[in-house]
């Protein structure tokens, strides 16, 4: 038990507890995921500190790398920005939950405090052949059957994931021709044959939230992604053009160059 480890622990542990508690209070699932990632990396560090470097690496690779990424994917699928309401809908559930959580913590801490542990042995001897090798000897020796079974379990789980998320095709798979004909048929309703225009590119702005200008100089609203429009995160063309003009005037003032933009369109806002 080196002093370094103690410092490491006392730095990491409170942070991990805070992060874990964050799981309870943050509104967005993404933030919760970030909290969990933090806890897991902290745990990985602690594993390494606890003479389990292999597990530490696996923790990072499997948990933070694979599992949490899977979580994030699903979050994106479900809607990354949806914020949860933290108001409780089941009557009394919050108090019950808090009380049970505190009670559980008290019981567990009490058990740990009551228990008498043998003097620590340490893993120097067991890890003499390096930790991964020692681990492998136990894993593939004593626990080889369990290891195989777990392998089968993983395959089964992967299959289960496939089956569960598999969508049965309800109709015939549309051919390219059919899709093209459907698009043409929808033209009268204002649909496009071509892909939607890309967002605008300006002298100082090149982002998803800036509408492009059409050939007639009018901003094209549908060049901004629909999600941004709905959320009201779209920037108006006027604002951008004003900023551009200011820039041009400033340049004019210094370089005496004045581009005339008399045909500036009336700004169009939502």
């Amino acid at each position: 038990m080196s002093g370094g480890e103690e410092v490491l622990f006392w730095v990491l542990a409170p942070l991990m507890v805070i992060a874990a508690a964050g799981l309870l209070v943050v509104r967005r699932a993404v933030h919760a995921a970030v909290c969990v990632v933090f806890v897991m990396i902290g745990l990985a560090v602690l594993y390494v500190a606890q003479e389990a470097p292999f597990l530490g690496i696996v923790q990072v690779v499997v948990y933070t790398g694979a599992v949490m990424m899977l979580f994030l994917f699903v979050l994106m699928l479900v809607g990354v920005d949806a914020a949860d309401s933290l108001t409780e809908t089941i009557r009394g559930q919050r108090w019950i939950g808090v009380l049970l959580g505190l009670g559980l913590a008290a019981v567990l801490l009490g058990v740990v405090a009551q228990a008498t542990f043998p003097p620590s042995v340490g893993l120097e001897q067991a890890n003499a052949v390096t930790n991964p090798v020692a681990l492998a000897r136990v894993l593939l020796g004593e626990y080889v059957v369990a290891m195989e079974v777990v392998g089968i379990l993983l395959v089964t789980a992967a299959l289960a994931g496939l089956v569960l998320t598999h969508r049965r095709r309800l109709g015939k798979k549309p051919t390219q021709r059919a899709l093209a004909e459907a698009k043409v048929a929808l033209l009268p309703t204002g649909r496009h044959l071509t892909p939607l225009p890309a967002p605008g590119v300006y002298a100082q702005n090149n982002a998803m939230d800036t509408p492009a200008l059409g050939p007639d100089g009018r901003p094209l609203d549908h060049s901004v992604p629909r999600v941004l429009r709905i959320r009201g995160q779209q920037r108006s063309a006027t604002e951008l053009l004003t900023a551009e003009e200011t820039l041009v005037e400033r340049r004019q003032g210094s370089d005496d160059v004045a581009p005339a933009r008399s045909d500036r369109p009336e700004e169009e806002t939502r």
Partner: protein
Amino acid sequence: MDLVNYLYLASILFALGATTVLLRRNAIVVFMGIELMLNATNLALVTFARMHGDITGQVLAFFVMVVAAAEVVVGLAIIVTIFRARRSASVDDVNLLKS
């Protein structure tokens, strides 16, 4: 430093995970709480391995990780399926267990 502190930390993390399961409605967050609980046990296992000088604890932790990975696959698949059917990831909306 006493190794017991690791166990205290594991206990607190476990309790926090459990409380998450009880309090959060978003199924994905609930799932994260479960992962947190599993990780807390892993920490305890690793600590016990060190305490007793026996590498088996780490092997157990390893198994827990693998099983947790399998569980995550299936669990998330279920959440996705439910979300597709109900446009919601709230566990409270899935109360078909009643009656």
